[in-house]
């Protein structure tokens, strides 16, 4: 190994007299692609050599790359029963070597579980049942606190409720408006193309009115709120969990259910039906704009047609649905936040789960409502 030609790190082991001599040369820095390693069985105690000295005469710059190598030498020497003459090393390197443990970490055995479908199914079932139980308990506690709130016996602060209502209500008006307006307009477009063939353009008002009031306004508003507010709840609670804020609440005798969950869920239950009604109105405006512009229906005609087409009980149906959606989104996202892990990544996972479960759940509940409504005959 020719060390003089360039400054790359080199080592050479030879037996001189009764000792091993390890010659180190070149620059031993960590900026290079690959560091020299010392083989674990590189030293053997022979009768000729029972000690090892270093020759650092040609050693250039060095940093922890050299220490890594020396540590390997030290470990190899120890297992071979060879004594190291560390006096021949630079004193600072000696000091660092002194800090290092006498053995390397045993390679951690990979924890690999064998997949067992029966056990997995069982575990999954148990987890689901437990989760259902927790969610039910959470729901009943929240409902109980809600009932006691008007009597003033629930320990919820009005300020928290107002702050949550503001966030869930007025602050989300803009996005609710945009989505519902466009949705109304899109439905009107789709309907206009078909209905015009039968010269029944004015029935666009019926189409938009019934579709939005009965289904779309409630579902779209709920999906927006699941993404916007549900995700925020989960992330906020998960962060509080990571900062031990939830622990502090519990220790201070402040129940998490009435301090965090109740105002959050209640705020959604209060604002969501109102947003639903608002969404219905905006979507009808969207529909009327398209109808007036494309189908030459008069605005008065559109309004009269809408009023005749959408019976009051449809509004009640949508109103009740949006309350159920609100409770579902609020409770699940709070629950997901509460059971999140404590790291930064866990906050992201919790927010994602809250949004996904919120959106899927809203649509699933809506289809359940459709079946019930069909059976009851609304």
């Amino acid at each position: 190994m020719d060390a003089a030609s360039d400054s790359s790190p080199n080592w050479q082991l030879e037996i001189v007299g009764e000792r091993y001599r390890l010659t180190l040369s070149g620059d031993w820095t960590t900026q290079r692609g690959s560091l020299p390693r010392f083989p674990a069985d590189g030293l053997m105690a022979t009768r000729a050599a029972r000690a090892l000295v270093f020759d650092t005469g040609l050693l250039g710059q060095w940093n922890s790359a050299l220490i890594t190598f020396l540590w390997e030498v030290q470990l190899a020497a120890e297992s071979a029963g060879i004594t190291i003459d560390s006096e021949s090393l630079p004193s600072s390197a000696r000091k660092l070597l002194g800090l290092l443990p006498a053995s390397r970490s045993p390679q951690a055995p990979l924890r690999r579980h064998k997949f067992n479908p029966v056990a997995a199914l069982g575990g999954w079932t148990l987890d689901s049942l437990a989760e259902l139980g927790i969610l039910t308990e959470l729901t009943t506690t929240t409902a109980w606190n809600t009932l006691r709130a008007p009597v003033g016996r629930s320990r919820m602060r009005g300020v928290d409720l107002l702050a949550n209502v503001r966030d869930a209500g007025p602050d989300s008006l803009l996005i609710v408006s945009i989505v519902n307006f466009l949705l109304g307009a899109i439905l009107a477009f789709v309907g206009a193309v078909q209905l015009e063939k039968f010269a029944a353009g004015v029935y666009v008002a019926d189409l938009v009115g019934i579709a939005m009031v009965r289904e779309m306004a409630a579902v779209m508003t709920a999906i927006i709120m699941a993404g916007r507010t549900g995700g925020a709840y989960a992330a906020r609670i998960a962060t509080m969990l990571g900062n031990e804020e939830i622990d502090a609440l519990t220790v201070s005798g402040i129940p998490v259910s009435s301090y965090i969950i109740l105002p959050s869920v209640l705020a959604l239950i209060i604002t969501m039906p109102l947003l639903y009604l608002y969404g219905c109105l905006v979507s009808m405006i969207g529909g009327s704009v398209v109808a007036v512009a494309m189908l030459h229906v008069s605005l008065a005609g559109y309004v009269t047609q809408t009023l005749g087409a959408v019976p009051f009980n449809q509004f009640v149906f949508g109103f009740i649905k949006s309350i159920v959606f609100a409770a579902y989104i609020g409770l699940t996202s709070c629950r997901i936040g509460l059971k999140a892990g404590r790291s930064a990544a866990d906050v992201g996972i919790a927010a994602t789960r809250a949004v996904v479960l919120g959106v899927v759940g809203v649509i699933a509940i809506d289809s359940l409502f459709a079946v019930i409504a069909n059976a009851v005959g609304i």
Partner: protein
Amino acid sequence: MASDAPARGPASTSAPILTLRDVTLAYGPKLIQRDISMAVRRGSVFAVMGGSGCGKSTVLRSMIGLLRPAAGQYRLEGEDYWAANDQRRTRLAMRFGVLFQSGALWSSMTVGENVALPMQMNTRLDAASIRAQVELKLGLVGMLQAIDQYPSELSGGMKKRAGLARALALDPDILFFDEPSAGLDPITSARLDELILNLRDGLGATIIIVSHELPSLFTIADDGIYFDAVTKTPIAHGSPGYLRDHCGHPQVRAFMQRLPSNTA
């Protein structure tokens, strides 16, 4: 030409490695500290002292390049840090190792991955060499057994040591410590002090330490600066021991002797 200490940069030992001249620090209109002038000698342990809320940590933040001073000059080995472009500043910052107050380990990674990441992103070492380096750095701070553990599984002192191993990842020549012994018991704290001194001697690094833990300051620091929270400017320079016994400022002496300031 074997070098006794790890060779880094120009060999001149007399020139300070880091200087602040008339630096003023502020968050928007809120003044934190003004007229800071100090020079840190290469290889020294420099203490940044002062009462709670005097802006010690802010001074540290500006030195590691997280806060641009409102006025004044910050020179790193003679080079004006804030006059350099972004790329150059990143290169300069790679010479810093920072131990944050509570470790600031990346919580989604194991301890080993935490130490490996700076090397994976900033050097061209291959995976095996990085693994060896990670083991070395964790071995130096006595945390080798925790290499596959997540930060959430560690105690406060272990987090600090893991954070120290990560600070050492790129072989920095300036190490910054923000309250290294805060929240540690006296024995763990004393052990950390010893470790810091050993690392200083072994790595030949310069250490800047923000602390108000007097016992550890007397043990490890050989130079320092004292910030006043009221006048918002440094009022004393010198090693903690010197300030305790000879400082002309009664308030500083009281602080170093642990007396309530009004009795001094």
